[in-house]
């Protein structure tokens, strides 16, 4: 096919792409300068650069403004964003998932004000290959805000975490942020199903990548890491709000798809003495929330594809999102913002592409659904 015609947009994209390809050689400050320069060139041509913006103030206006009046440093409120489940193959194989991730990165970069940090919720890669993870790191490096990484099973089970840890460090860690204690867990340990079967790494990840593949075992945090968690919490007063990140939901939703953590009850028990605990998890690719005792749970959206709701076990407090339109490659996908209030409890804002955003007020869960009920779906899953 003779390439005879190029539109102005294409020319702009090419220039921009060329600038971005030099990304890895640049530190962040220089990188931002390059970006600005490209945008400037475009403005000179009378084109509007395709920056992504989110009218945060619009989406939030009806619910809660406490977070936006930023507290003094050292206390809530604050806002952070998440991206999750990008499931990227290398872009030569599949551009769609790469573009989903890039779109989310640009959306988050356009947030005003910027989030304090961006949590990446796991499953950066689809098949855990080193080149997939490197490409993922390259794309996440475009985020303006600091990034906190979490691992998912798709990232881990090709080389059992070697490459991921080399790129991003230990898979479980904690830090304190404006009065909230934040813990990132590696919750997708699996029992060894591969040695006895003499599986290659490629075969192993293929099995793990199949959500409904029963050969793999159920996810767990595991004894070792639960001990680590216990020790970590020993230093944290029970008055401190906790924010826990895990890839799998830290409760039991649907076993067959590993919407599940085998030792969830034991982990929950360690958190019981803290009145304000929020768990943010990936893996489920859907609008999903739950309340168990003192713990509020929120599932993150994917940028690659939405999962259907499981046939059983959906938490009764969850108000389903509408079924996704298969004809719209953005539908059912997106990213999120969490606006942490003075009590250290986040309101979850699901920024769904091509849909109205959905806000889940922390008090909706804490009141067990008595107030702030989100709108019902027109076309629920069945």
């Amino acid at each position: 096919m003779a390439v005879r015609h190029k539109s102005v947009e294409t020319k702009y994209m090419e220039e921009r792409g060329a600038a971005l390809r030099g990304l890895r050689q640049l530190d962040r400050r220089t990188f931002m300068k390059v970006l600005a320069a490209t945008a400037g060139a475009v403005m000179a041509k009378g084109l509007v650069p395709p920056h992504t913006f989110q009218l945060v103030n619009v989406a939030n206006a009806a619910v809660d403004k406490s977070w936006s009046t930023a507290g003094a440093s050292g206390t809530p409120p604050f806002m952070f964003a998440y991206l999750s489940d990008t499931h990227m193959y290398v872009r030569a194989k599949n551009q769609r998932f790469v573009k989903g991730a890039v779109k989310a990165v640009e959306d988050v970069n356009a947030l005003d004000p910027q989030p304090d940090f961006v949590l990446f919720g796991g499953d950066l890669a689809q098949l855990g290959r080193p080149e997939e993870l490197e490409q993922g790191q390259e794309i996440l490096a475009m985020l303006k805000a600091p990034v906190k990484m979490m691992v998912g099973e798709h990232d881990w089970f090709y080389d059992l975490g070697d490459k991921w840890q080399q790129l991003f460090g230990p898979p479980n860690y904690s830090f304190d942020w404006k009065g909230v204690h934040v813990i990132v867990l590696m919750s997708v340990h699996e029992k060894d199903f591969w040695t006895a079967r003499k599986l290659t790494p490629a075969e192993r990840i293929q099995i793990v990548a199949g959500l409904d593949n029963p050969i793999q075992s159920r996810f767990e945090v595991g004894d070792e890491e639960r001990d680590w968690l216990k020790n970590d919490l020993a230093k944290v007063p029970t008055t401190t709000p906790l924010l826990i990140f895990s890839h799998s939901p830290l409760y039991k939703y649907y076993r067959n798809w590993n919407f599940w953590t085998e030792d969830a009850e034991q982990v929950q028990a360690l958190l019981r003495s803290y009145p304000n605990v929020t768990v943010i998890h990936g893996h489920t690719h859907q609008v999903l929330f739950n309340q168990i005792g003192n713990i509020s749970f929120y599932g993150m959206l994917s940028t690659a594809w939405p999962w259907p709701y499981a046939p059983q076990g959906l938490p009764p407090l969850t108000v389903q999102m509408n079924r996704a339109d298969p004809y719209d490659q953005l539908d059912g996908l997106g990213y999120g913002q969490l606006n942490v209030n003075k009590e250290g409890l986040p309101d979850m804002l699901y920024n769904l592409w091509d849909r109205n955003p959905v806000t889940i007020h922390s008090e909706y869960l804490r009141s067990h659904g008595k107030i702030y009920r989100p709108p019902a779906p027109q076309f629920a899953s069945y």
Partner: protein
Amino acid sequence: MISKAAFLLTVPSLLAAAAFAALAIPSRAQQQQPTHNLPTAAHGGTIVMLCDGKTGIEVKDLKPGQTMSRAEAQSVADALMAKWQHAHPNEHWQMAQASPAAEASPAASASRGAIAPSHAAPSSSQTQSAANAPAAAPSLTVQQGDTYASFQPRDYKVWKAETDKFVADGKRIFHDDKALGSTIGVSCDMCHPDAANTHPETYPKYQVQLQKVALLRDMIDWCVENPVKGKALDPNDPKLRALEAYIYAQRKGVPLDYGKH
């Protein structure tokens, strides 16, 4: 490929299909479809047989390629059934029920009784599905004889094994981006684990994005072509048939609800 003689289905509810016996065109039939050997037509007409492979009559006036009227076909069907019953005086045949309402009507029962006195034959045993194979060998309380009364437990096992293989093949393809012909590493299970959210029981239904009524296979093909980025499969492609089988199998027990959204 119009066969010279067509077979009558003996499933009672399909008796009316006899009217179309001479027209039955097994188009797109599977190549390995078994056939009965037919006797030669002695008078240059067309042999019409029951599916027992034994009972047949020749319709003398019907040359190959000709068709019968509905009334003629019905009379042929009646003659065949009469012949079968004559040859099997001890067999009981439960006639087709036009509708549940007719069942409740004494007059209708009486007329059916006139054709084949019913002794409350367990009609369910005639349509026994593979999955519901009887555990024990047939006993004297169950009808014995030809066709549906002659199947043994092993037959049920064969049926089930064959059906399960068909479904298993569908499951394999469903989970295999290469078998689906995906150019971008996408397979069905990535969005539909355990074939969830495929709701095969709701087809045919108006598919908003196609702006027309679709069958399940239309949507499978759409998915293969669009998100999966493969080539749409021919309706008779064994892969498409297997995918359809797997998806239906995953929804066993769910009531049909065509047109649901």
